């Protein structure tokens, strides 16, 4: 029962991954305030199998909910690298798409995609809970079709991502033990 032969087994796995997404709600901007209504009674994202995850080790979905200062980006990258393989990123708000209203600010990130692979963008200067749930459903469809392979993408062109990150961080790079591993269990 090895893991990555496409066939039926993978289909079932994707079905399970679709229906149980554990969210690491990263309150990095104004979008964080939208997360509670989506999870609680009125919009109840738990119906879709969403559940808050306390640590990146347990999480599948990383929601970046707003502008990203370079300082916050370092934390986001470390968290992303600590998550395990089928991991997805949902970027809320226009600030993650093209810098939004901070398009000319000196210390915000203009395009999130340069630094970590993003699965679904939800535009809007802070999308409402319905829009977030819409984004999640889109994400679930991607997972079902098996196209939500952000982790593989990050692994394959790690140099490119690291080059972009080094441009932003300069010499204060993150330690690299979070992404390249020697063997052993």
């Amino acid at each position, binding site marked *: 029962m090895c893991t990555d032969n496409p066939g039926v087994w993978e289909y079932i796995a994707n079905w399970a*991954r679709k229906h*149980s997404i554990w969210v690491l709600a990263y309150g990095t901007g104004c979008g964080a305030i939208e997360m509670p209504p989506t999870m609680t*009674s009125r919009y*109840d994202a*738990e*119906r879709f*199998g969403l559940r808050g995850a306390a*640590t990146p080790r347990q999480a599948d979905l990383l929601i970046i909910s707003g502008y990203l200062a370079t300082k916050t980006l370092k934390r986001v990258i470390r968290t992303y690298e600590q998550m395990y393989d089928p991991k997805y990123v949902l970027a809320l708000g226009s600030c993650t798409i093209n810098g939004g209203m901070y398009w000319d600010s000196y210390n915000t990130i203009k395009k999130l995609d340069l630094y970590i692979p993003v699965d679904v963008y939800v535009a809007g200067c802070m999308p409402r809970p319905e829009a977030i749930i819409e984004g999640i459903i889109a994400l679930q469809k991607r997972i079902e079709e098996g196209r939500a392979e952000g*982790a593989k993408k990050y692994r394959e062109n790690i140099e490119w991502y690291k080059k972009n990150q080094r441009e932003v961080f300069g010499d204060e790079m993150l330690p690299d033990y979070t992404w390249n591993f020697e063997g052993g269990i």
Partner: protein
Amino acid sequence: MSTGMRIVDIIAYPFIAFLIGMLYMGIARNIIGRIHRRWGPPVLQNLIDVFKLYRKREAGSHGVMFHLGPIIMVTGVVTCLYFIPMLSDGRWLKGFSFDGDLILVTYLMVLGALGMALGVGQGGVPFGVMGVTRGLTRLIGLEIPYFIAIIVLMAHYNTASINKIIELQAGGLSNWAMFKVPLAFIASLFSFWGMMGASPFDIPGAPQEVASGPATEFGGKYLALMMSSRGIFGFLKLTLWVDLFMGGAANLLILVGKTFVLFVTVLFVTSVYSRFKVEQAVDFMWRYPTIIGLIALVIEMVR
């Protein structure tokens, strides 16, 4: 009851507990959702979660002991399960309960948690250690009312083997231990909620304070193992309480029925009360349940 059937019976033992346990947790999340006036996840949500975690492609480990931590936890829980008879007819689903007694079961319940703690230790996350310390300190509080209750039971039925206790409770509702030694049952209920991790007592794994405590550093397949062992553990405690206080179960259906009734009491407590601090939990446990238990003990000694 050929040996072949006996082997199937033994192998099926933990899986039955796993399924029912996961089912109960799913139902619990659904009911709590309904209490919050929202739909809540589907009943099989927990099973899906566990299956998803099993199919995670990556998992990190901090060393051999880290790798063995969850394994020992499952081992401890399943071993403890084997020493508690699910059905009281003595033929099916009785595990190895005839080889052990109540004190053995009490200590086996804690074995899993201690094994897990070793894994958490090597994980090196300070949150993990804090979670373990809170868990063990809470245990000091929980163990006392529970032990007083089982002392009363042992004194009342003058035996320590669970099967014999079930037999002595046969014959109708009136001579269940629940009614024979009601105060002891009430005292044990408090510690039951504590051990189930019901809300006022879910101190070790509190996500807000200690980032899910012991499970902080465990992801992927290890988390799956921990969730399934928590499911089995839930069901294990339910069957134990049913055996001790509600006269055991003749067949699986009665078992599910009785355990579900007991499980509902946990729900009421979880959804209403907010979390205790550790010292509040221990102080609470040593105050009311212990006094109730002692009263039961005195009544027992007088008789």
